[in-house]
């Protein structure tokens, strides 16, 4: 009879939201056990910080100060770059990126099931966490919230076998989907064409296309690309940039208040406005870019990450888009550097994916 009851409960839990309050009430009490199980670690850290010697603390402080200085310096540049990005986007008639708000959360437990990669954090529904919210650590995306409890929530990590995230190569905007493999140090890019321009060391950033993760956060770096002639697609393995199994402090990203639909509409509009200038590629880049600061060389990065959506070297069926997009990114660089490449040659070079690697190499100088 209990068997029947548990089956019934399982079905109800799987299909309806009826049991959600029950679960949330139970978790209120039961989730304390994660906290208690985590207590020794916490105590150890507390004791260690109590007895940390003065010299150590001073050294630590020194290190943090330098790091802070470096970050501040970078931040100054970032302010200018953000401004510039906004201006460029205004010129392109597209919506500006809104700064996302973040909140710090702490990891309190790992999922005991070794075959899933989930963690438990100490922020929950009452802290304003929502389902599907992206979670970062200091180095990159970690995952998303999959279960809410009053004061805790469960986060599915990128490397779980059931998780996939839309990404793009930071270098050239090539889009792909990174799926988890169940190995905490590995993601795999599915269905990447053998001729796609992707190579070892490429940074993969979130593309924001799934409308769940914000665009532009680092996800992984490509570790190896295997071209096996027996396989229909290239095998691309990547290592997550976030310390998925080591980070203790995480950042919850609160994106702007727009609903997914509004965001989709905005994205579509943006896409449209990006595609318009691509009709005649000669006009837009040459008109907008020299007008802005000459420091456009450094701007190449943020400019490349966000509007690079049409830059699909992979989407061979739409060849019109490819030559258009690459010059858009390329001239940002070329006027400032010593004119590394001859811009007119480029649209010709990008027509076939096979020759595409040439452009990125020049851009990396």
């Amino acid at each position, binding site marked *: 009879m209990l068997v029947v009851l548990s089956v019934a409960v*399982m079905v109800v839990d799987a299909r309806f939201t009826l049991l959600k309050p029950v679960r949330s009430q139970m978790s209120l009490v039961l989730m304390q056990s994660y906290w208690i199980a985590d207590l020794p670690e916490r105590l150890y850290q507390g004791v260690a910080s109590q007895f940390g010697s003065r010299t150590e603390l001073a050294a630590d402080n020194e290190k943090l100060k330098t790091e802070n200085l470096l970050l501040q310096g970078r931040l100054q540049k970032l302010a200018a770059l953000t401004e510039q990005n906004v201006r460029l986007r205004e010129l392109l008639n597209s919506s500006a990126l809104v700064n996302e708000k973040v909140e710090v959360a702490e990891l309190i437990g790992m999922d005991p099931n070794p075959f899933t990669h989930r963690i438990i954090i100490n922020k929950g529904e009452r802290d304003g966490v929502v389902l599907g919210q992206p979670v970062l650590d200091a180095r990159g995306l970690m995952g998303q919230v999959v279960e809410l409890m009053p004061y805790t929530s469960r986060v599915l990590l990128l490397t779980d076998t059931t998780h996939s995230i839309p990404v793009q190569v930071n270098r050239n905007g090539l889009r792909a989907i990174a799926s988890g493999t169940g190995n905490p140090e590995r993601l795999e890019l599915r269905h990447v064409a053998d001729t796609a321009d992707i190579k070892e060391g490429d940074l993969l950033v979130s593309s924001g296309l799934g409308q769940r993760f914000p665009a532009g956060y680092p996800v992984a770096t490509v570790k190896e690309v295997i071209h096996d002639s027996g396989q229909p697609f290239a095998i691309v393995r990547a290592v997550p940039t976030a310390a998925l199994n080591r980070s203790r402090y995480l950042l919850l990203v609160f994106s702007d208040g727009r609903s997914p639909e509004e965001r989709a509409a905005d994205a579509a509009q943006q896409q449209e406005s990006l595609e318009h200038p691509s009709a005649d590629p000669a006009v837009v880049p040459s008109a907008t870019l020299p007008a802005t600061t000459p420091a456009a060389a450094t701007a190449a990065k943020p400019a490349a990450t966000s509007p690079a959506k049409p830059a699909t070297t992979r989407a061979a069926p739409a060849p019109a888009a490819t030559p258009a997009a690459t010059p858009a990114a390329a001239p940002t660089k070329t006027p400032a550097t010593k004119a590394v490449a001859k811009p007119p040659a480029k649209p010709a070079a990008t027509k076939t994916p096979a020759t595409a690697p040439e452009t990125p190499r020049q851009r990396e100088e």
Partner: protein
Amino acid sequence: MARHAPARNGWVVWLTFAIGLLLSVSPLPQFMEIFRPLWLALLLAFWALALPHKIGMVTAWMLGLAEDVLYGTLLGQNALILTLITFLVLSLQQRLRMFPMWQQCLVILVIFGLAQLVQLWLSALTGNRQPTLALVLPALVSALLWPWVSYGLRGLRLRLKIN
């Protein structure tokens, strides 16, 4: 811990279950995660053998629900598993109590292995199927732990006259 009359000290049973819940979520090194023993199942098996009039399938079901909430699985999944384990233990109870320890271990191994297989089916139904045979390892580890758990709890039970 005074020696009360019989039918006392029932809270110790619940204390062991609470500790079992803690152990089942306590952090372990990565490589040991797949060996994590089924603590709650072990405790349930022992108490069901020792106090069949107190600890039965309803207790198992409740504890299973608690475990479901902790693990974030479907409500009822672990409840079903633990109920099944308790049912098997209770139905073998008369024989199991007479068995020498190594034989008890074997029976526990079979019961827990069976339960893990059901677990595998259930998780396959809910969409996250695991790379199979590693799943039986917890059952094996639990069976190896059974003598220690059993002797330890028996000592505790005699000392506190839990009834």
